[in-house]
């Protein structure tokens, strides 16, 4: 049981031109599953490692249960980490790997054995306890790495891209299992990934980072429905949001671009203001009275069709549920409900809300 809080945490590696993590503020509640997500190099691992104590904190504080632990040794923080490459001790059996922390803590052998067996049972590792890591599949190694963490019953679990070495199918299965396990154990968890689907499916709250800064922190639905800027808007959702640059009409209630595309907006905005609008592919739909679009590419995925359209002033991807039998070159009308059109400032990309 533990709360975590990053307070103004900065880490600047010597000899690099920008801070790896800059003024990070991130409160995490007891029992919460928080995912740090963002493109490569945005500082996710650095944040996690500062929390674990494997990386120095230059300034700011990290609190666990209200106590600043940013200068404490890793072993004093009572956190368990699952590494991307699992970091299993190759010369120890699965049981010894899982019991290593307890062995170092000088717990009695019988207690270690018992706890390891309970954890192994939970993870379906019982038949493998006497094997060496080299004789396990990737998925099983992954489980051992998790087993090593849960045997300890620490205050906090940390995961750094734990699934990235698994194949797609196993990844989906494991992410479900991790989520379920965390729910059962109720232990506060910080999970790093660059995969936004992983983030969306697993997280209670997601922290989206970019270039060392926190862009947005919220529930998956908040991030999806109300991204605070074009970065988050483009990062969350797959395929990514369509962006169209242009300006607000004189009436304040419509968007248009130079190529003649025009769309109704939700609420009113400053007339003439330069903006970028964003529409998710799943929110575009065919409509007689919509703006003109030409089919460029049709990609059926089975459940839906991914269609790339040439639209006035660029391209847009739509994912359509119903089968429309569209062919390349075909001319159709496209539209999106005003509530599904996100408006961002044309200069800094921040979200704009219309007045009602």
């Amino acid at each position, binding site marked *: 049981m533990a709360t975590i809080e990053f307070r103004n945490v900065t880490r600047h590696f010597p000899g690099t031109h920008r801070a790896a993590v800059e003024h990070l503020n991130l409160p995490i509640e007891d029992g919460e599953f928080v995912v740090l997500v963002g493109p490569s190099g945005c500082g996710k691992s650095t944040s996690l490692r500062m929390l*674990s*104590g*494997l990386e120095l904190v230059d300034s700011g504080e990290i609190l666990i249960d209200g106590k600043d632990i940013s200068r404490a040794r*890793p*072993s004093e923080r009572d*956190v*368990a*980490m699952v*590494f991307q*490459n*699992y*970091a*299993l*001790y*190759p*010369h120890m059996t699965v049981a010894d790997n899982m019991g*290593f*922390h307890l062995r*170092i*803590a000088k717990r009695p052998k019988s207690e270690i054995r018992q706890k390891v067996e309970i954890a192994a049972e939970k993870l379906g590792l019982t038949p493998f306890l006497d094997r*060496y*890591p*080299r*004789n*396990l599949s*990737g998925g099983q*190694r992954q489980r051992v790495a998790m087993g*090593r963490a849960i045997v*300890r019953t620490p205050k906090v679990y940390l995961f750094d891209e734990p699934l990235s*070495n698994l194949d797609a199918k196993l990844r989906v299965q494991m992410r479900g299992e991790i989520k379920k396990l965390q729910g059962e154990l109720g232990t506060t968890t910080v999970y790093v990934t660059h995969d936004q689907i992983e983030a969306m499916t697993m997280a209670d709250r997601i922290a989206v980072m970019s270039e060392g800064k926190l862009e947005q922190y919220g529930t998956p639905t908040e991030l999806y429905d109300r991204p605070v800027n074009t970065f988050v808007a483009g990062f969350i959702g797959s395929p990514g949001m369509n962006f169209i640059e242009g300006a607000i009409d004189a009436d304040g209630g419509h968007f248009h671009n130079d190529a003649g595309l025009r769309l109704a907006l939700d609420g009113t905005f400053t007339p003439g203001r330069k903006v970028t609008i964003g529409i998710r592919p799943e929110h575009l739909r065919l409509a007689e009275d919509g703006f003109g679009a030409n089919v460029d590419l049709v990609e059926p995925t089975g459940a839906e069709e991914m269609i790339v359209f040439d639209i006035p002033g660029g391209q847009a991807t739509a994912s359509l549920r119903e089968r429309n039998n569209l062919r390349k070159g075909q001319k159709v009308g496209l539209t999106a409900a005003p509530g599904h059109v996100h408006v961002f400032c044309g200069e800094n990309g921040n979200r704009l809300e219309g007045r009602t």
Partner: protein
Amino acid sequence: MLLRKMPWPAFRGGVPTQGAGAPAGAAKASDNAGPVKLIGLPLTWAFVAFNIFVLVWMVMSSLKTSSEIFEVPWNLPEVIQWENFVIAWRDGNFSRAVLNTVLLTIGTAVATIAVAAPAAYVLSRFKVVSASPMTMYFAIGIGIPAQLVILPLYAIMNQFGMVNSLWGLWVLYVATSLPFAVFFLTGFFASLPGELEEAAMLDGASAFQTFRIIMLPLARSGIVTLAILNTIAHWNETIFALVFLQTDDRMTLSVTLLNFMKAMQYNNANWGGLFAGVCILVLPVLAIYLWLGRQIIEGMTLGADK
């Protein structure tokens, strides 16, 4: 580099293969069949054949009489002269020398590793400013020939009263072994993944526990290689032993053989006995090579790769 074969088998499980690295590496490995191979292969075989021939001839000669050796050098011995070995062992004072050499050799290997392994681990891992100059310093030590420092060393050892002492020689052996040992093991430790230490750190292990329980066992193949190379080097070592040892009871095998050779030259040379002496020196080393050769090569190439 990703494709490098890991000699410690336990390790393969720990690091998942990086699929992306494979095609590039594989292409590289297959295109070295050029002129080097064409000339190199026969040359290597010629060299091997020559060495085997010399060895066989040496063993054969050690079982012949002196006159046989000169009159029919290529024939097998008429009657096998086992007593050549008895003569060498007894007259050459070999029994004492073998004991001295075994103790000295093992003692040197053990002490060298006991000092070099922790030193190398620290140099490879702890990012202190002085780490890389210190590694360089050790590397430079490898290049200094023993002959060059033998006189000053003699003066120093004399002051400490450690001339004509097996302990003194042991100190010298360990000291002169360290540069290569530290350099070799630094490369070895550097090739082990750092995540393991981080995992151990979070598991609550101290730096020393991490070294002893995690890193040392993983570096086993490097350490064994080093031990073998070190043992062979000191089993044969002559220069220091010749200069620093004086009395018969403290001689090592190589010096004893040298003295035995001198003695043989004066009294009506027993060449069979002499060859027997050489065999006593050489065959144990050869046995070690045959027994652990694979291990040595794997350990060496890993070290060289870094």
